[in-house]
C-alpha cells in the first residue's frame, strides 16, 4: 500500500532533517544529499539512522534516474 499523503508531507531525514524522495516501487525513502535510503516495513517507514542503508554512487545514480523518470517530488519544499 502507498504511504498516506499527509504522512509524506512532513517526513524528513532524521539526520539532516531535509526532504526525501518516496520511491514507492522500491518501498524506500531516499535522501539524495547523504546518499541514504530508509526502508518501509509493511507501510511503516523505518526512520532510524542506524538502520538506514548508505548507497554507493552507482546506486545513487540509478535511484535519481528513477526519480527523474517518474517525476517524483520531494516530501516537502525546503
Amino acid at each position, binding site marked *: 500500500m502507498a*504511504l498516506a499523503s499527509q*504522512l509524506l508531507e*512532513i*517526513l*524528513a531525514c*532524521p539526520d539532516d532533517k531535509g526532504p526525501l524522495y518516496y520511491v514507492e516501487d522500491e518501498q524506500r525513502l531516499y535522501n539524495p544529499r547523504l546518499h541514504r535510503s*530508509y526502508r518501509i*516495513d509493511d507501510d*511503516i517507514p*523505518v526512520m532510524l539512522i542506524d538502520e538506514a542503508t548508505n548507497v554507493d554512487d552507482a546506486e545513487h545514480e540509478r535511484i535519481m534516474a528513477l526519480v527523474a523518470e517518474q517525476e517524483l517530488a520531494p516530501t516537502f519544499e525546503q
Partner: protein
Amino acid sequence: MSDLFERWSSTYDDAALQRFTYRTLHDAVVTIASSQRPGTILDVGCGTGQLTRRLTRLDWAPTVYGLDVSTGMLDRARHCGAPLIRASAEALPIADHSIELITCTESFHWYTDQRAAAAEFARVLRPGGQVAIISIATFTDVGASLLRRATAGRSTIRALPPHQIRAVLAAAGLMVHEQRRVRRPTPPWPTLTRAGRNG
C-alpha cells in the same frame, strides 16, 4: 532496552492495566488537545496506539501521527487509524515547524538523551505549538539519584524531578506553561508538563 519493549508489547494492552494505569493520563492529554484544537498532532512514544486512536477521533478531526521506536508496539498500533513512523524521539524524521501539538505520555523517562528529544520537540513545533509530556517523575534530586541506583544494570529509566524536566524544556527554548501531578488509582503518580514554542 528495545528488547524490553518487544517483550512488553505482547501484554501491554491488558484491559485492566490499561484502564488503571493509562486512562487518567490519556484523559489529561485529551483535555489539553480539546482546549487547543490543533490541526496536527504527533504522538511520540505512541506504544500500542491507545491514545493515538483517541486523538484521531476528536471532533475536529486533526491529522494525527503515531511514532515509536519499537516494532512490537507499532505492530499492535497498526489499526489505530493514524499513519505510523518507526523512529527515535531524539532524532525525529519530521520537517521543521510542521506540528501543532506533540503528545508524549509515559515515554520521556525512557529516553537516553532527554535534552536532544526536547530540542527535537522545539524544532518540529510550529510557532505557538505546544508539547504535553506525562512522565514518571521523582519528587526530588535525591529521589532521582536513588532511583538510578536502585535500577542500575536492570533498567534504563531516567525519571527526573519536575524542576529538571522544566529545565530540560527551557534549555530547548520551550516555555513551560503548566506542571502538575496526575493522580491515578495506582502510584507512581506521573507529572504532566505542558510547554509551548513562542510565535
